[in-house]
């Protein structure tokens, strides 16, 4: 049933109107200059058309003008400076998620999205979120590079193997919005899609508690902490303790200080000898191959649940 022919996706996030406004400005500038050039070309081509085959080339040709060169260098420079600063401003301001953002974890793999909420609820190729609440996605890939793209939110970010990337958004209207994989990832790339469901807070709470065992990500992480034997060192002083660790600055044996954020904790589990905490021996075995990406996220959730330090918990 054809109705209004859409030129823009719906504005469903707090960032969308700002991006669209800048887009309109860019369109205005582009239309102006395209029209200017097109019209000048048409006008000159017609007004100065050769009227006879043997018409002589024009005399007294004007072939340079410093004033004009300066004019059409400076004006574009000013315009692109506006574009740059405007775009950079939005980009930088929106680079870090607000402190109160709800965390959701995404593992991308060929060719599906596995999403896990902190309360343990999982979904595939779908993301349910509440409206008007910032959501921070911590994402990783199990294989190749993917990209978590939600056009209605004007937001996307690549999802990389062996590291975490983040993106955040705040949905401003309820509804169902496309989720696309937007970094070519092989055969099923165009099938790696789904939906983001933005719900009213009450509906979201109800959804969150449905079909869930009551076991949160942190609970699962705690189980792993015992089953994998982490407790034998980290619970006895042989390894660094976890209480209050998340977000805390950590002094390393080589003198550097790093922050115990998601990336640091992941690396500590999978590549324990890369960075040794000052005062401890490099005796931790690697758990690479023994834990999946979502199990790593559960372990991190557990560590976080033992108390976190208010500080910069993640680089953009």
């Amino acid at each position, binding site marked *: 049933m054809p109705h209004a*022919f*859409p030129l*823009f*996706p719906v504005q469903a996030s707090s960032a969308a109107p700002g*991006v669209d406004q*800048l*887009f309109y400005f860019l369109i205005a*500038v*582009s239309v102006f*200059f*395209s029209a200017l*050039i*097109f019209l000048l*070309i048409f006008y*000159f*081509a017609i007004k*100065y*058309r*050769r009227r006879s085959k043997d018409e*002589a*080339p*024009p005399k007294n*040709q*004007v*072939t*340079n*003008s410093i004033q004009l*060169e300066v004019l059409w*260098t400076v004006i*574009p*420079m000013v315009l*692109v400076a506006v*574009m*740059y600063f*405007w*775009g*950079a*401003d*939005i*980009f*930088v301001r929106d*680079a870090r998620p607000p402190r109160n953002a709800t965390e959701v974890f995404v593992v991308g793999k060929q060719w599906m999205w596995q999403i896990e909420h902190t309360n343990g609820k999982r979904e595939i190729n779908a993301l349910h979120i509440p409206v008007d609440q910032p959501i921070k996605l911590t994402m990783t890939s199990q*294989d*190749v*590079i993917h990209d978590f*793209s939600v*056009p209605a939110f004007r*937001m*996307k*970010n*690549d999802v990389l*193997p062996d590291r975490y*990337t983040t993106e955040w958004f705040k949905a401003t209207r309820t509804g169902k919005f*496309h989720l696309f994989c937007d970094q*070519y990832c092989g*055969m099923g*790339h*165009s099938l790696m899609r789904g939906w983001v469901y933005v719900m009213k807070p009450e509906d979201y709470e109800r959804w969150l508690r449905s079909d869930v065992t009551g076991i949160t990500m942190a609970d699962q992480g705690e189980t792993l902490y015992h089953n994998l034997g982490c407790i034998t060192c980290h619970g006895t002083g042989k390894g660094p303790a976890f209480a209050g660790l998340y977000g805390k600055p950590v002094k390393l044996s080589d003198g550097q200080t790093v922050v115990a954020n998601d990336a640091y904790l992941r690396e500590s589990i999978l590549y324990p000898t890369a960075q040794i905490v000052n005062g401890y021996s490099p005796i931790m075995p690697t758990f*690479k191959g023994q834990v999946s990406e979502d199990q790593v996220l559960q372990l991190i959730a557990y560590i976080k649940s033992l108390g976190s330090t208010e500080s910069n918990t993640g680089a*953009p």
Partner: protein
Amino acid sequence: MSSPEVELPIESRVHYLNAGYGIKSWLLTTDHKRIGLMYLVSITFFFCFGGIAATLMRLNLLEPQGLLVEPETYNKLFSMHGIIMVFFFLIPSIPAVLGNFLIPMMIGARDVAFPRLNLLSWYVFMTGGLLALYAVIAGGVDTGWTFYTPLSTAYSNTHVMAAAAGVFIAGFSSILTGMNFVVTIHKMRAPGLSWFRLPLFIWAMYATSIIFILGTPVIAISLALVGLERWFHVGIFDPALGGDPLLFQHMFWFYSHPAVYVMILPSMGVISELVTAFSKKKIFGYHFIAFSSIAIAAIGFLVWGHHMFISGQSIYAGLVFSALSFAVAIPSAIKVFNWTATLYKGSISYEAPMLYALGFIGLFTIGGLTGLFLATLAVDQHVHDTYFVVAHFHYIMVGGAVMGYLGGIHYWWPKISGRLYPDGWARVAAIIIFVGFNLTFFPQFILGYLGMPRRYAVYPAEFHTLNVVSTAGASILGLGYVIPLVYLIWSMRYGPEAGPNPWHATGLEWTTASPPPTHNFEETPVVTEEPYAYDRLAEEIQVV
């Protein structure tokens, strides 16, 4: 320089086309003009393959569920389309065909500095191209022309090595060509031909050659590392070994961004020639256009990170690359204004080359302006890897570079073949191409902002209408490309003889016969005046 008074008919003269017959005289030639023609045949051959891939892609996209092929096949089609069009058509097109043919003639030389290396470059190009074609025939490659890791190194099951090897080898062809051009332009100019008397096509080719020389080796090493990782399972870009897939992206785009300037700068050089010849006017702002070419090449090496704004790259890098990307747009804008100003008070005619030139200016303007959208960080976050990007680069590369190429082929066709093509048909084809092109690619801007990702074999139904419009346009565009193929070949036999200077244009290439003798000039010319001296031509005609 006045044209010779008496011109012998083509058949009774010895010129570069009939000086030696037989396949060996072509395959072992060191004549830059013959080598240019060999490249012309080769890249047209590859263009057909790339075009067939595009046709199948657009047909497939007629239906949201994919009309024609499975996603697996579609992925191979877009990969081959990109690899063939970028590396085996666009990058060589104007440099290897028109550059080879014209540079010595435009500077009054007998040949390029290293004619045997020139021939070698063609063989190297063909080896690379045939290796890439082998990859197609053997089953295709599905990594995209961008070969991102770890997909290309560890996950793709297709003929990545053959395709990467083909591109690697063809890169040496670019390097040899660039080397030849720089040395030729520096060391072999005719007496009196100072740098600021050179035609702007030469400036554009010089800037392009700098990029060939400095940029191509980096993609060579990038692809070599991909090949090594794939073959030996050693992990430069493998996170498990501490490697970083982003490093590949940095290395790849360090070349591939300047490569897009390789694709557009020669076209810009052609446009400078066409706009002057068909408005019988000196170019407006010669020095500004010349220096803009150099500026584009130089700044073009500093912007590669704009392909990676949301790749996981730091935002600080993003800020720097965004600023530089805006900077590189300014010299292009300067050129567009100068070309337009050249038309002012000119004496303008509408032969096909001029239609291509005017079309170029309009479409390049749109393409260039949409580049600003992509340089804008906050907007790129939305349109990265969508059809908006696809539309942007096709406006530049097809609406820009290919139209410049076709304009140049038509303009210099009389010099190359000695004959005139039928201009009526040529104008019709140019207009069909212009219309078909816009119908194909303008809807893609809209599709992109709506969110349709690129490299998608199937898509949500809401994008259907615009895809149908785009495919319809593509069929018109395809028809437009076939027409010149027909009449240009026809003209080689049946076209009227052109004479040395059918366009009454300035430039050393027009002072010698069409087709030229093997050594280009009977006597080395001596240059005493500015380029595009149409005002002096005006006085000459006045005197007569």
